[in-house]
């Protein structure tokens, strides 16, 4: 066991650090560090512009998706080098938020399933932030039951025609391309009638509408497809193999979401260290200490679980479904912490006004955002199913829709 770099790793870290020292947009550091669940505020500068500009600079120096192969826009770094790079990029990595779906999910899917021509065409601009990608999977009628999607891709002479609706699409409003899961055959059992495509988000018949979330922000969209024509080259994988392709994407999604999750522990700990309540230090209250200690151990547990995953990666093991625990633990912990913080604030806890709220309204924003973390990218319940079935080897749920053609699956009580 060792938390130190090997000499080669130390050298690489030096290289990364020197480049960051010379190139990082330091004017944004404070804003990036303080960013909680409010929208990022860069003092009048457009966030997407700042993101694209930073990504462009990284790309020019080979630091955009540096773990990707060179021919696809990366630099061929090893997994451990990639981790070191992320550590050194640090808080500036948050500028890459608009690219996270493309880099974390669409890119790997293209890498596995696109033609060599398409990989060379699409991956480098994706890495460089020049083209933004989104993922068009969930539908109003198919969330946890993703294989139950209804968006149709109908074969026509020169390709496919897409009709239907997607939902919960992050960044659709700024995306150039999207990875689309569609139903090509409703007459076979649901997992077998799906096919994966990529689609030009600027094509005629594609309409994006932002969803206003419960917390007032709009991080997600609905996307409507009305007779959108695409070519057969835009198909990824075989016709009917869409579920298999989607699983690659989803496992990458859970890894991406799980690794960076905050529990909010650091925020509550720092706040408790400074807070007085009715003249007594909150930090001395044993009820507070007990909760803080539990969350501290949970947070460090997640942190070192990630370290163990990196260790496994460096030994050549692919991270598996056991990484689902990151989001599962972090989501509900964050909700507990937010509720607890408001309780500590007493009556003033209800105030979310940036002027007047405790700790700048951080915990109120956290409270209102927390329910989403327990749902997005796999609900708590789906994650528990994944852990129990794929890690612990327990039997699957009884499936009443298993061998039924999709168009005959019951959808409502008679």
């Amino acid at each position: 066991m060792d938390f130190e770099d090997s000499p080669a790793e130390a050298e690489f870290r030096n290289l990364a650090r020197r480049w960051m020292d010379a190139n990082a947009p330091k004017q944004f550091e404070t804003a990036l560090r303080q960013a909680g669940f409010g929208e990022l505020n860069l003092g009048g500068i457009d966030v997407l512009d700042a993101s694209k500009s930073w990504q462009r600079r990284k790309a020019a120096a080979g630091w955009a998706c540096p773990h990707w192969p060179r021919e696809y826009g990366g630099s061929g770094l090893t997994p451990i080098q990639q981790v070191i790079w992320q550590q050194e990029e640090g808080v500036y990595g948050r500028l890459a938020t608009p690219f996270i779906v493309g880099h974390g999910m669409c890119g790997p899917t293209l890498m596995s399933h696109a033609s060599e021509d398409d990989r060379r065409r699409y991956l480098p601009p994706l890495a460089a932030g020049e083209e933004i990608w989104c993922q068009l999977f969930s539908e109003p009628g198919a969330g946890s039951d993703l294989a139950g999607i209804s968006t149709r891709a109908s074969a026509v002479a020169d390709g496919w025609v897409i009709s239907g609706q997607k939902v919960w699409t992050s960044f659709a409003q700024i995306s150039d391309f999207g990875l689309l899961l569609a139903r090509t055959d409703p007459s076979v059992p649901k997992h077998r009638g799906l096919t994966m495509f990529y689609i030009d988000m600027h094509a005629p018949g594609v309409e994006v509408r932002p969803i206003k979330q419960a917390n007032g922000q709009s991080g997600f969209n609905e996307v409507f497809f009305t007779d959108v024509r695409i070519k057969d080259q835009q198909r990824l994988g075989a016709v009917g193999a869409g579920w298999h392709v989607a699983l690659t994407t989803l496992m990458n999604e859970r890894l991406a979401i799980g690794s960076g999750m905050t529990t909010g522990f650091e925020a509550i700990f720092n706040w408790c260290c400074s807070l007085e309540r009715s003249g007594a230090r909150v930090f001395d209250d044993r009820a507070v200490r007990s909760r803080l200690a539990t969350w501290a151990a949970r947070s460090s547990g997640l942190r070192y679980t990630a370290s163990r995953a990196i260790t496994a990666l460096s030994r050549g093991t692919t991270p598996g479904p056991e990484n689902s625990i990151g989001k599962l633990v972090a989501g509900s912990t964050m909700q507990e912490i937010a509720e607890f913080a408001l309780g500590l604030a007493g009556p003033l806890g209800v105030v979310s006004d940036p002027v007047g709220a405790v700790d700048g309204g951080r915990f109120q924003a956290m409270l209102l955002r927390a329910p989403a973390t327990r749902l997005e990218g796999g609900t708590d319940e789906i994650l528990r199913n994944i852990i129990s079935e794929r890690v612990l080897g327990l039997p699957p749920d009884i499936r009443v829709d298993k061998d039924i053609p999709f168009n005959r699956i019951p959808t409502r009580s008679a």
Partner: protein
Amino acid sequence: MNLDFSPEQQRMRDAARRFLAERCTPAAVRKVFEGEESYDKGLWRELAELGYLGIAIPEEFGGSGGGYLELCVIAEELGRVLAPVPVASSTYLAAEFLKVGGSPAQQAAYLPKLASGALIGTFAMAEAAGEPVAGTLRARVDGGRLTGTKTAVADGDTADFAIVAAGGAGAPAASLYIVDLHGAGVARRPLATIDPSRSFAELTFRAAPAEPLGVGGDGERVLARVLDGAAVLMAFEQLGGADFALEAACAYAKERWAFGRPIGSNQAIKHMLADMYVSATLARSNCYYGAWALSTGAEALGEAAASARISATQAFQHCARNNIQVHGGSGFTWAVDCHLYYRRSNLLALALGGLAPWEDRLVDTLRRRSAATEH
């Protein structure tokens, strides 16, 4: 032994539920939520006309001469529909302060107008983060003038007067004063909160005229008694909210299908709902006991109020939180009402102080009772 409402009270509940279902729809709540007005003025008028605001105010002061049990019934119904009106501030708190601590002249001056809804009162105590505690208040009254700042005052932007807890030279740790919020030396600043369907403000007093509540001097007794009562009433609001959230979650679990069957046929969902039912049931039983204690002036009121407060707070937060979870993604949209209940559950959890002071009140009263039994 009878721990239930009477048939007459149940008829009153049915009537209130019918009225509110029609009059206080989610659309009406959203008008206030979206900032069209500070509270639903039309609903407020109608509640007054129905006699609900004066239900626990004696007839001699313009009330309808019912009692606390009837007010509990109404509170539960208001909670179910998230009624965006200042009933808690004006009826559970201001009117009760006057009933419990006011002089006959003050009662005659204020209670009829509170019963008719012509005046809105509120209560102001908190000054900073943490639970406000008598003895640490910085607001001061000297020579009949109040100076200081009160924050997170519910309905502080629209109330006509406030009962203010403050210290004073040579006065006890906390005394209570009546302050006209339209008077000189009062500045109000509206505050955004986690639940915009209720309005809050910061009140700054600069030598504002302040009249002692009653004869003064027993501020702490009055404060404890009124807060206990308000905790019971607020617990009924929370109970109403918890029940509604549970029902909404059950309805959705039956109606939403995935994997070829209703999501409510999955044990993960069923057992989550069963646990919500358990929370709501424990809260209901404690609330009924609280209602009994409040309505009979029982010595056990402190203990009963704290139990009701704690379990109703937990139940509403639990049910509202999991109602979103059962709804999945749609539960996190602005358009679906789940978040209104989630927000309200967290607002009410803090409105009379968070759990900590009520936990203390509960164990301290239990201990006093157990010591008394032994001796």
